[in-house]
Each structure stands twice: as C-alpha cells, then as structure tokens.
C-alpha cells in the first residue's frame, strides 16, 4: 500500500515562493517534482534533514530552496560541485546535494563536475537530464538528441553543427574516483521506483563517507518538448532511453574506501601556531648603534651562481642587526642562463623604492654582470669582482675595485657553488656595514638543505682567511 504523506524534509507551505504557496513553480508533467519528492523521502528515511545542504543550480530547479526544508545555497551556473566541495571541506558531517540540470552540469559546468568527481569528493550529485534548457525557454542542451528541434536547433540537432549528445554517466564512469554511478529514468512507475532506490543509495554513500556518487535521471520536459505529459513520458522511453542507457555503471559502495577521503588534519592551537611561526621566539638582535651609509646593492651573476640566495642572506643579516632591508629579484626568463640579479637595499631609515637602478655596491659574479652595471655604479661606490672568471679590470677610477677569486676559493673548500657565500662574506668584511658573525648566525637558518650548512660555514672561514691575507 502506498502512503501519501508529505516528507518532513519539505516545507509545509512554500513561503519563499511568494504567491501560490501550496503548489510548486514546475510545469505540469515536469520531472523535477517527482525527483524532489524522492530526495525528500530519502532524507527523511536517512534522518539527515538537519545536516543537509541543497545546492540549487541555475535552471528550472534554481528555486529548489522554495521546497527543501534544509540548509540551502543557490550556486552560479554549473559551479555547484565547486561550491559543494568547499562546504564539504568546511563541514565534515554535512550531507551536501548538488542538484543540476543538463545545461548546468553537462554544458557550462563540465570542468567543475569532472574535478569534483575526480577528487572523489564525498558528495551526492543528482543530474537531471531532460535533453533541453528549460528555464531559458527550450534551447539545445549538450544532451539534446539528433534531430530534436529546439529554439536554437529549429531544424533539428545535427552531428555536423553541434556534435553528439553527451553521456554524462559514461563520462563520470571513466573517472577512477567515484564510488557510485547510475542512470535511471522517470519513464514508468517501475523505473521511478528504481530511481528512488538509486537516490537513497547515493545519499547513503555520503552518510557513510564513501565518496562521490552521481545519479543521472532521465526526466520529461513536456512544455519545451511541446508535448502532452503522457506523450512526453512515452517519448522519453522511446527516444531518450535508447541514447542514454538506463543502468548501473558502478557501485563500489560495499568496498571500504572512506579513509581515502578523510582530510581533517590536527588543529594547532593559538599558542602552537605562534610557536610554529616563530612569533614567540625570544631573539637577541645585535642592535647596531653606529651610523651606516645606505647600501644600494646589485648582486649579479649567472643563473645558478646563487646570487638570489646571496642577496637574501645579505638582507637576513640586516634584519638580524635591526636594520631596514629590501630584497627584490630580477626574475623571469633571463634567470635561465643569462644574467640574474637581485637588488638589495640596507638602511637605517625607511626604504622607498626597492629597485636599485644605480647601485653604490656592485657584486659582479661574472663578466656580463660587470658589463651591464659597471657604468651605473655611483661615484665613490664599490665593485666586488669574481676574478676567478672575470678577467677584465674595472675601467673606472672613481670607484673602489675589489678583486677576489671566489670561485677558486670555493673550489678549494670543496664546493664551487659556495662562491656566493665567499663573496657575501667578503662584502661584509670590506664594507664593515654588518658583522661577519651575523652571517654565521643567519646562514644555518636560511639554507634549506641542512647537509650544506657545514660546508657553507667553511666558506665564511675561507673568506676571512683570504681577507686577512690579501685585502686588509
């Protein structure tokens, strides 16, 4: 015996609708009402009404929130799976339904549905396929059949013009992650019962946190098909079902796979976050009292010579000594092979532009760097040259030139890539702007690969040794 009672997951009267609060906005013979009813019944049976959120699409079911007495959100055209994904990742125990039509899901929203399915989001998608755009007045959908006349295919859909009708269940079934994919039909009362079962299964899967379920439901649209309701049911069976086979494509709901979709990570408390970010760290900074001249540094060389890191370490030293500093990379294609450079400014005052067009310190790790920037150095400035690979001498007499074979020295220590550290250390020793021991302090924290810390510390010793012998 069939009991005709209204599901409690429906509102008693549809107040959000405005006038006509006892009837839906759907047309006579439309499939949405039936599907809504089956969903509401399943929500009742699973006892999940309070924790359910229905995502309405753009299309005839845009107003699904008139009817479902659940949390409701209306989504932009085709994007419900993205909206639902985010809500899923906020509320672990929510039951989230994406209710989408064929224009919404199979047209504009293909990206979102594919990727939500591929992530295996623990969501339930009800895809209503009626082979036409309803809300906008009967235009061609991606699922419109060959020969089917719509407002935008007045002489019937053809392969040459619009391609073939898209099988959504087949596409979703081609993706590994979903747990459940089924296509059903509203063609006969028997098929409606099968649809009821599929809807409940797809929701049950979500309750059990099993992953992504999609039920494609073939539904009639008598108004836009320009048919009587009964004729539409018949047409659905005779024309839609042969193109879109009604069957279960996949049911992995008995397999235990839910662990894969658990994304909750241990929450760090305020104190733990402050510790992790180093905010609570007690740090003694070597406050410098002496006056320093603002340093406008260009640290330049081949990509791969470590000029970026050299610059970062320099700025780190300044930060450590309580000075203001900026570091700005010259990034982009020229980093590969060509000249890479970083602008560093160190000052006791606040720093305006971080761009160094005219340096007072040029660090030239290779020849092209010297060619590019020598002329731009301020009179009275300093140029440090990697004399291991730069054979030319500085032509200007109004700047201080420091030649140091950093690549050779680094090789002697055992790693040519340490030349940038020797150069930076030499700059600190020559300029006396900052303490060499500040570099010893910041270097271990700044080098990501910890196995290289020791050898880089030796580079600093090497620089000091060379400075004492040749430059002081």
């Amino acid at each position: 015996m069939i009991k005709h009672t209204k599901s409690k997951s429906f509102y008693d009267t549809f107040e959000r609708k405005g006038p006509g609060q006892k009837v839906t906005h759907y047309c006579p013979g439309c499939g949405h009402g039936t599907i809504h009813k089956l969903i509401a019944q399943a929500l009742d049976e699973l006892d999940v009404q309070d924790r359910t959120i229905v995502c309405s699409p753009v299309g005839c079911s845009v107003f699904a929130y008139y009817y479902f007495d659940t949390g409701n959100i209306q989504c932009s055209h085709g994007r419900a799976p993205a909206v639902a994904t985010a809500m899923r990742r906020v509320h672990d125990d929510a039951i989230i339904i994406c209710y989408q039509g064929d224009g919404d899901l199979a047209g504009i929203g293909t990206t979102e549905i594919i990727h939500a399915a591929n992530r295996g989001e623990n969501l339930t998608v009800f895809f209503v396929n009626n082979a036409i755009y309803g809300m906008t007045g009967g235009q061609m959908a991606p699922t419109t059949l060959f020969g089917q006349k719509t407002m935008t295919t007045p002489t019937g859909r053809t392969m040459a013009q619009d391609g073939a009708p898209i099988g959504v269940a087949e596409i979703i079934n081609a993706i590994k992650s979903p747990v459940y994919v089924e296509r059903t039909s509203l063609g006969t009362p028997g098929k409606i019962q099968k649809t009821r079962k599929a809807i409940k299964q797809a929701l049950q899967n979500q309750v059990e946190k099993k992953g992504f379920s999609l039920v494609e439901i073939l539904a009639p649209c008598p108004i836009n098909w320009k048919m009587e309701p009964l004729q539409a049911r018949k047409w659905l069976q005779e024309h839609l079902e042969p193109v879109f086979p009604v069957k279960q494509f996949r049911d992995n709901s008995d397999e235990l796979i839910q662990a894969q979709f658990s994304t909750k990570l241990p929450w760090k408390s305020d104190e733990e976050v402050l510790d992790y970010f180093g905010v609570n760290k007690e740090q003694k900074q070597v406050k410098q009292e002496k006056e320093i001249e603002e340093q406008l540094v260009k640290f330049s060389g081949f990509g791969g010579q470590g000029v970026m890191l050299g610059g970062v370490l320099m700025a780190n030293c300044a930060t450590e000594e309580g000075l203001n500093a900026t570091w700005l990379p010259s990034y982009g294609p020229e980093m590969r092979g060509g000249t890479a450079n970083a602008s560093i400014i160190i000052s006791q005052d606040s720093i305006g532009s971080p761009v160094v067009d005219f340096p007072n310190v040029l660090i030239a790790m290779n020849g092209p760097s010297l060619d590019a920037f020598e002329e731009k150095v301020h009179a009275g400035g300093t140029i440090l040259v990697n004399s291991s690979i730069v054979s030319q001498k500085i032509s200007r007499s109004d700047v201080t030139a420091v030649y140091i074979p950093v690549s050779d020295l680094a090789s002697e220590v055992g790693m040519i890539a340490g030349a940038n550290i020797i150069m930076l250390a030499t700059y600190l020793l020559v300029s006396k702007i900052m303490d060499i021991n500040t570099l010893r302090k910041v270097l271990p924290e700044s080098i990501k690969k910890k196995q290289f810390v020791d050898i880089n510390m030796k580079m600093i010793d090497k620089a000091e040794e060379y400075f004492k012998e040749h430059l002081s």
Partner: protein
Amino acid sequence: MSKQLLKGNEAVAYGAIMGGATHFFGYPITPASEIAHKAAEIFPATGRFFMQAESEVSVINMLYGAAAAGARSMTASSGPGMSLMMEGFSYIACAELPCVVVDVQRAGPGLGNIWPEQGDYTTVVTGGGHGNYKCVVLAPNSCQEMCDFTYRAFEIADKYRTLVFILSDAYIGQMMEPVQLPTEMKHGERKDWALYADKESRNNLVTSIFMNQKIMNDVNLNLQKKYRKIEEELVEYEEVDVEDAEYIFIAFGITARVCLTALKKIRDTGIKIGLFRPQTLYPFPKKRLNELAKKCKGFIVAELNAGQMADEVELTINCKIPVLRYNWFGGTVPSIEEVIERTVADLGGK
C-alpha cells in the same frame, strides 16, 4: 619579539592564518604563486585547509561555498585569474559573503607579462562583475602591510559581510623585507546567516536571486546603505610632508615607494612636494583629498596604468586644481631619477 625576512607574498599567508583564515583555495599564476606555495605549507601544517582548484572559476565558487559555510576563506591571483573570477565576485557581493581575494597585479591586457602594473585598479575598485556593488580594497605597499592588511581583512569582511580585496603588485609580492608578525591570533565567530549543516542553521538560505523586483530593489538599497557606512568608517591613508606642500604626489603600492624616495630629493631642489598614499582604494579618501586640494596648487597622480586613479582623483576634487598624470605600462617601474627629472621639469620655477 623579532622581525623575519619574508616575501610580500609569504607575508600574506602568515597574516591570513593569524587573521583567522581556515580555508585557502588557489590556482597557480605568476606573480602570485608564492602565496599558494606558502599556504600549501602552513595551512595544512596548522590544521587549516588548502586546496589547489582546477581553475580560478572554481576557486571563486569554492570561496562562495566556504564563506557560505561560515569559514574564513581566501585566494590569491593576478590579472587573467581575476578576470575569470568576476562573476563570482558579483554573486559574493549580492549574497553578502565575507572572504578575501589578493590580487598581485601583473601587466596586461591579455596574458601581458609578469612584471608589476596597476592596471586592475578600476576593475577591482569598482567591484569587477555585473551589477551595483562595491568591495573593500586595501592597497599595501610593503611586506609588512601585506601581512597586516591580510590579517585585518578577515575582520573587515566579517563585520561588513563583504569581499575584501588586497590590491598588490608583482614587486610588493616578490620583494622581501623584515616583517613583524602579529602577536595575537584572531578567529571568526559563528554567523547567524551561514550554513553549518545543523538544526539551528537549517532555515538559512544563501542566494543572489530575487525574482521580485521590489525585493531586488530593497537588496540593492541595503547594499548601498552598507557602502555608505563603509565609506564613513574605513577610509585610511598615509601622508608624508603634506603640511607645507604646494604639490602632492598621489600614489599607492609600489609607485608610492618610488615617489617616497624621489620626494626627498625633489624637496632638495626647493620644490615643496608631499606624498598622499591611499591605503584604502575603496573607500577612497575623498574628504581628505578635497581638503588637500584647497591647500595646494596641484596633484601628481603617479600610477602604473593609463591614469585610472587620476580619473577618480579628478572626479573627487571636481577638477578644482590641476592633476598631472604620470603613467607607466607594460611592467615598467620608473626609476627614482626619472621621477625626479620629470617632476622638476614640470614644477620647477612655477
């Protein structure tokens, strides 16, 4: 307490978590990617959530969903990604969802290049998408402000139920400076309108469709009322040497820093020049600009675009005093020397 050397983009991610952000949705784009990189590291490490979405269109709809679900959520992008998110901005504005979007501007139009520009000014300041709405726009000009503005953005977003943009640029995003992280963590509170998937919030609806014209009209009037309140309460700016200034640079972001360095040297030539830097681009500091327009002879609006803020300034002061326009495009940032030369040539002897 000590400062850490951070990239502007990294500072955003730290400021976000400390400001209460729990969900970050990202899509790679230069020069904003380091925000997603840092977020991918520190959001999961602190039990927050990070996801790389399949497109910026999905990203903005994820923000719509996360914000609707009551979470403090954010993303970061640049020009082309911003263009893709416009429809979502409009939905978020109408549904009055609080969230934060960082735009690390690159040069355009089109794919443009990855160097700094301020060409997104008008799009972002006017809200971007369709319909009558505004979003709060904060304009940092240092790594410290990248952190601080993001930290505060979530409070502003929640308080006014609005999207907050952080309008930055490739240099402010890519450069490093010492940054003092905030010392106190903030958190969002439960919102009576959001969807928590529980009995208490079951009757809530998040939507931007109002078929009844009268209701849609009221929705718009309410939004406008909110914007007037924001204009009253949120305006912020910084001034340098404006008290005795005859001329004033008006600039934001990286351009303001170039002007700041140039300003000192221009003053050495005897020209009394100051700097006015809006820190909020919406709401725009209209009242203060009108006061300044009464006191000085002219404004110089310096920006990395075709004069988008200059239009706003002229409109604001009703063209009371001359507004010179210094504009650069394509990723070009002027040298200090160029700004000095041009300013002295334009103002010297006047």
